């Protein structure tokens, strides 16, 4: 009976591995964020390997790999994002959001930036007031 369960686990993992191999190859490089998609596909392969390890009776190895695999995927994705993706696709860093000027709790940067610029109406209005300074003569 155990032999059949082991065989089923190994066959299931073999099917998952073949599916992930086909996905890894057939995902087009022109697709947006294709590298993250491929990392995701490798996640299927990782879980298939864990199932196969359980089927082979290597429980400790399966447990270790179950913990290790997400760290690997995250490290690769993080490195790709920090270096290649951010340098090659600089438009990803700037997010365009339409500001809601009517909301009293949101203070858009462009609105306050225009108030602080040199030719703003607010600063011109402030020119009406002069600041008097007291000059102290040290000789007295």
């Amino acid at each position, binding site marked *: 009976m155990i032999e059949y369960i082991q065989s089923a686990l190994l066959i299931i993992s073999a099917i998952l591995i073949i599916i992930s191999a086909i996905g890894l*190859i057939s995902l087009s490089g022109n697709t947006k964020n294709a590298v993250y998609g491929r990392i995701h596909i490798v996640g299927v392969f990782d879980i298939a390997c864990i199932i196969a390890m359980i089927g082979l009776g290597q429980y400790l190895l399966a447990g270790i790999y179950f913990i290790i695999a997400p760290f690997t995927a995250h490290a690769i994705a993080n490195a790709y994002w920090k270096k290649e993706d951010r340098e090659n696709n600089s438009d990803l860093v700037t997010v365009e959001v339409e500001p809601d000027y009517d909301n009293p709790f949101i203070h858009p940067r462009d609105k306050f930036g225009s108030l602080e610029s040199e030719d703003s109406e607010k600063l011109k209005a402030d020119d009406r007031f002069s600041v008097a300074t007291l000059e102290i003569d040290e000789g007295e």
Partner: protein
Amino acid sequence: MDILFIAKYVLVIALIIMMLAALRASAYKSTSMGLLGSSVVVVAFAMALLVGGDIYNLEFFKDISLALIFFGFVGTVAFAAVLGGEDK
């Protein structure tokens, strides 16, 4: 020929297909894809070693596959840390 023996061979064939796919994937233009492909090849080889050791009663196959998986992880994370560089 029992079904477990056939299942092991099917798994080895699937792992070989995955290794070839990972080798192709590691040849894509991004450096991260090379890192990903090499990591997959190492894990697939460790798995094939587990199955092969189970079939042919090899010595130390568990230790070698454990070392491959663990040091493959360490190498991948180290290379990824170097590739990512400092935080800006």
